[in-house]
């Protein structure tokens, strides 16, 4: 090998190693920082007003930061349901909002309106299922949302009142603030018993729940 080749190979190896080591170091220190944060103040992760599914004293709490207008949240929702069904009474799901799209705050208002009439999970599922209709990037049609709620048999006027409710808006702001503190930059983001789930995937979420069940 010539001097140049040694230099090329050596420098490449050096820089790439530095990159990989840096990535590993950064990720593990971030995970530790967020874990310490969630241990220190549980309330940032779960607020008493947050919608939740499953027993309050479940061994494992999954906190999902989601955005009703986000495609990945809709796409991943069946996996969340699957994990919930698999672990039954051992898990509780808490929903927090992290609106990243133009119509998300409005959609959150609709969901919260449906919740007041006891059909939160039905409404969430409907919004995810029909997302291609109302949340197209080129031609979003948020006006369709009320129609879906009507189809669910809900009182549309009461939902409308919730979307304009000041308390609802301050809760949404609180969710956003907490999410920012907890380093939520993408949706959906999951925390299982306070530990952030690093990669999005059914297996990742399932194994995080399993690990938390074994070592509570």
């Amino acid at each position, binding site marked *: 090998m010539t001097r*140049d080749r040694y230099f090329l190979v050596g420098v490449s190896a050096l820089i790439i190693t530095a990159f990989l080591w840096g990535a590993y170091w950064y*990720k593990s220190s971030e995970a530790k920082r967020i874990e310490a944060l969630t241990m220190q103040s549980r309330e940032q992760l779960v607020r008493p007003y947050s919608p939740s599914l499953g027993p309050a004293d479940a061994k494992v709490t999954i906190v999902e930061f989601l955005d009703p207008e986000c495609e990945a949240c809709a796409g991943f929702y069946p996996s969340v349901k699957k994990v919930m069904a698999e672990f039954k009474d051992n898990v509780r799901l808490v929903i927090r909002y992290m609106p990243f799209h133009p119509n998300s705050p409005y959609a959150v208002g609709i969901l919260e309106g449906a919740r007041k009439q006891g059909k939160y999970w039905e409404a969430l599922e409907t919004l995810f299922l029909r997302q291609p209709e109302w949340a197209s990037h080129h031609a979003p049609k948020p006006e369709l949302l009320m129609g879906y709620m009507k189809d669910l048999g809900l009182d549309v006027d009461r939902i409308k009142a919730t979307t304009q409710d000041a308390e609802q808006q301050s809760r949404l702001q609180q969710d956003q603030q907490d999410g920012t503190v907890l380093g939520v930059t993408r949706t959906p983001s999951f925390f299982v018993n306070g530990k952030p789930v690093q990669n999005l995937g059914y297996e990742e979420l399932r194994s995080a729940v399993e690990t938390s069940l074994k070592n509570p």
Partner: protein
Amino acid sequence: MTSPYLLLAWAVSLTATLGSLFFSEVMRLPPCSLCWYQRIALFPLALILLTGIVARDRNVTKYAWPFVGIGLALAGYHNLLELGIISEELAPCSMGVSCKAPTINWFGFTIPRLSLLAFVAIGVFLWASRSVVKEVKNDS
């Protein structure tokens, strides 16, 4: 014989490329639009210089200069913007990520500053490598 300066220019471009990828892929900092244009000028440099060195093509600097030039112009503009020397009205990034607000600041080294530093270093090393080539020519 490849100029050592050319090797250095390549090393800087590779470091800057991976550094930029570290910010976006590891630290998950979304690049603003001006950052994207600088990345378009930067990433090919790591490959063009590498190919030129391996192929022993002295013309490689000629192919690299346009990228360095564009990168220098964009990085210069970005720094003026960040330092507030150019007013906000001229800032092209009103949507998405702000080009003005620094996302990181390590002892005064913001991301646009690192970008400018990288393009200046690549430019200087490319310039230096050219003069070495000339000397070699004169000797022979």
